């Protein structure tokens, strides 16, 4: 089980985690960042640097955030708006740059007031 960036990241996109990731598996969407679960090596370097504590080990994900795990996967497996094919496994954020769109759930996500 790999690490997961939850919706707490929405509209924050601090990107400190990207500087820590040794395999460059964190990708920048329009409103949040996403971890490619098949590329993540489970090292945990990203988790402590997130200023809003949006990152969890998948196995320690609180139940109410389980949907975020599906979302990280969907970002790479589903065809995102304006694209012809799923992102799949790009092999590093540096190779593809900002994706600028999100999964349907995150595109319409309304942040709860207590997370602002």
């Amino acid at each position, binding site marked *: 089980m790999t690490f997961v960036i939850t919706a707490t990241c929405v509209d924050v996109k601090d*990107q400190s985690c990207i*500087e*820590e990731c*040794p395999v460059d598996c964190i990708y920048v969407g329009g409103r949040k960042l996403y971890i490619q679960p*098949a590329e993540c*090596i489970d090292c945990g370097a990203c988790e402590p640097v997130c200023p809003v504590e949006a990152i969890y080990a998948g196995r320690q994900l609180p139940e109410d955030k389980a949907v975020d795990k599906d979302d990280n996967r969907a970002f790479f497996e589903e065809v995102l708006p304006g694209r012809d094919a799923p992102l799949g496994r790009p092999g590093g954020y*540096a190779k593809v*740059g900002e994706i600028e769109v999100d999964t349907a759930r995150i595109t319409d996500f309304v942040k709860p007031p207590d997370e602002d």
Partner: protein
Amino acid sequence: MLIVGAGPCGLYGAYYAGFRGLTVAVVDSLPEAGGQITALYPEKMIFDIAGFPSVRGKDLVDNLVAQAAPFDPIYLLGEQAVAYEQLPDAALIRCASGQTVCAKAVVVTGGIGTFNPRPLPGAADWVDRGLAYIVPTYGPYADKDVVVVGGGDSAVDWALGLEPVARSVTIVHRRDDFRAHGHSVKLLRASTVTLVTPAQVVGMDGAQHVESVSVRDVKTKAVTVLPAQAVVAALGFTADITPLEAWGLDVQDRHIVVDTSMATNLPRVFAAGDITEYPGKVRLISVGFGEAATAVNNAATVIDPAAEVFPGHSTDQVAGSVA
């Protein structure tokens, strides 16, 4: 025997190679032994090393180095093993520096691959034209306006080291907070180093050599142009397995396929630790230690076909002797 990767499994392999009476060299692209432990979590406590209820990461590395030390392993640190050539009775490994190592057997304990500095986005053209990723000495920066990019320990340490040498030092970081050690950050804030945060480098300009850097404020999006004759990007490291793929190893999803003796598809080349792949693989240090013992002892029979796979018991050693 050559061991490629000085992480915990490589160090333990060096012990076993020495125990078997082999001469052993250990090559690693990082400047220090310890692999991911040293690079990612030296201060973290580890709780799943057999016989150690808990051990600090760097203490485990120190102990592994000490365990191998009686056999005098040759450490080739800061060297990246980039090519494999099959010789009639050996393997020839070439390093990026040009150094070659001729070994009767090779054990690859390369973990997640070799570590490279993370590139500054869009700045590939400026390498060797004023852009550097590491600062081995401060001398070349004398009387220059230097822009350091990053917020970790390397960025802050280099900015502080350059301060008395350079004409000016500016540190550009994407956040207001620095991740470097608190004491270093305190020194930084008290120094003459100009802090530009939260900001990102968005461009570099100059005729032949860099003359200026464009920096964009993350919040206001305003772009400022700073004079700079040198730029240091300290954005951490990423791991890359492609140098090992170039050997001709069977690599699947960043892992080397091995059999039950830890043999790879290449003659005289074995693998152990996080880098291996086989059905049922579990990526833990404890498993890697076992694989290192399997790889080294099977490799020993390639070096000497008359040798047995089983190395004998370490308890049979005469106290104080090493082989």
